[in-house]
C-alpha cells in the first residue's frame, strides 16, 4: 500500500514537471487537477518550480562586449579576402593549364593529320611510330 502510494506520488510529480513543458491529455489533466486540489504539498511544489523557472529566466541578461558585430564582420571580411585570393590563384592556374592543354591538343591533331597523309592507316603503331621501332632502340631515342 505504501509502495503504491509512493508510485502514485512519483507519477503525479512526473505529471507536474510535464505540465510545464508538455501538453497533458484530458485524462492526465483531470488527474493532475484533482491531485492539486487534494494536496497542499503538491500546490506548494508547483509554486516552487514556477518560482525557480522564473528565477532561471531572469538570471540571464547577457550580452557580448561592445562592437561584437563589428568584430564578427571583420572576421568574415578577412575570410572573404583570403577566399578571393585563393580563388584568383586557382583561376590563374586553370587558365594557364587550359592554354597548355589547347596547344597540346592542337599539336596532337597536327601530328595525326600528318601521319594520316603520309601513311594509309591510322593505327597507334603508325601514330607513335612503334611499328618500325624495336624495343632496344627506344633507349636510344632522344627522349631519354
Amino acid at each position, binding site marked *: 500500500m505504501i509502495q503504491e502510494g509512493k508510485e502514485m506520488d512519483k507519477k503525479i510529480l*512526473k505529471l507536474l*514537471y*510535464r505540465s*510545464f*513543458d*508538455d501538453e497533458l491529455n484530458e485524462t492526465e489533466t483531470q488527474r493532475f487537477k484533482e491531485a492539486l486540489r487534494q494536496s497542499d504539498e503538491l500546490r506548494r511544489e508547483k*509554486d*516552487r*518550480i*514556477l*518560482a*525557480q*523557472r*522564473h*528565477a*532561471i*529566466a*531572469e*538570471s*540571464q541578461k*547577457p*550580452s*557580448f*562586449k561592445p562592437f*561584437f558585430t563589428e*568584430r*564578427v564582420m571583420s*572576421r*568574415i571580411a578577412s*575570410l572573404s579576402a583570403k577566399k578571393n585570393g585563393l580563388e584568383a590563384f586557382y583561376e590563374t592556374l586553370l587558365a594557364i593549364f587550359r592554354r597548355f592543354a589547347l596547344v597540346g591538343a592542337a599539336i596532337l591533331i597536327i601530328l595525326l593529320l600528318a601521319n594520316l597523309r603520309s601513311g594509309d592507316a591510322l593505327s597507334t603503331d603508325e601514330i607513335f611510330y612503334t611499328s618500325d621501332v624495336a624495343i632496344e632502340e627506344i633507349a636510344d631515342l632522344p627522349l631519354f
Partner: protein
Amino acid sequence: MAATVIGMLGHCPEAEDVGQETFVRFYQSLDKFRGESSVGTYLTRIAINLSLNELKRRRQKRGRFSSKDDEGIENFPDRNEQKQRKELKDIVHTGIRKLDPKYRTVIVLRLIDGYSTSETAQILKLPVGTVLSRLARAQLKLKEILKPLYWDKYDTRGEGNG
C-alpha cells in the same frame, strides 16, 4: 545568441570566441543551408555544438569528468537586501553552470532562450520525450543546488514568486 552561449559557458573570453565562431561558421555554410529549419534554429544549433565542444575541451584540460566550471557556492551571500537580487541571479547562474552539459543545454534553450519543447528537440536533434526527461532532471538537480538559499527563502515567505 549571447543568452545561449553565455548560458552554456558563462561570462568568459571563450564565450565571445564561440559567439563569433557561430556567425562565421553560419556564413561559411550558407550554401548548405536548405531552409529545413529557421535561421534562428540553425544558428542556435551551431552555437550549442560549439559550446559543447568548448566544455569538452575544458574538461579535457582539467582532466575531470564533471562539468564544474565554477567554484562551489558553499558560502552563501550576505543577506543584505540591496545585494540580494544580484546575488540570487549570480547563484542561479552559477547553479546552472554546475549542471552536466546535457542538462544545462535544455535549461538554457527552454528556460532562458524561451524555445518551446519541440523547438528544443529540433535544435538538439533529440526526441521530445528525451528533452522532457532531461528538463525534469535538470530542474530537480537545480533544486538541490539552489535549495539552501532559494527554497528556504521561499518557505519563509510562504508565498509564490511565480
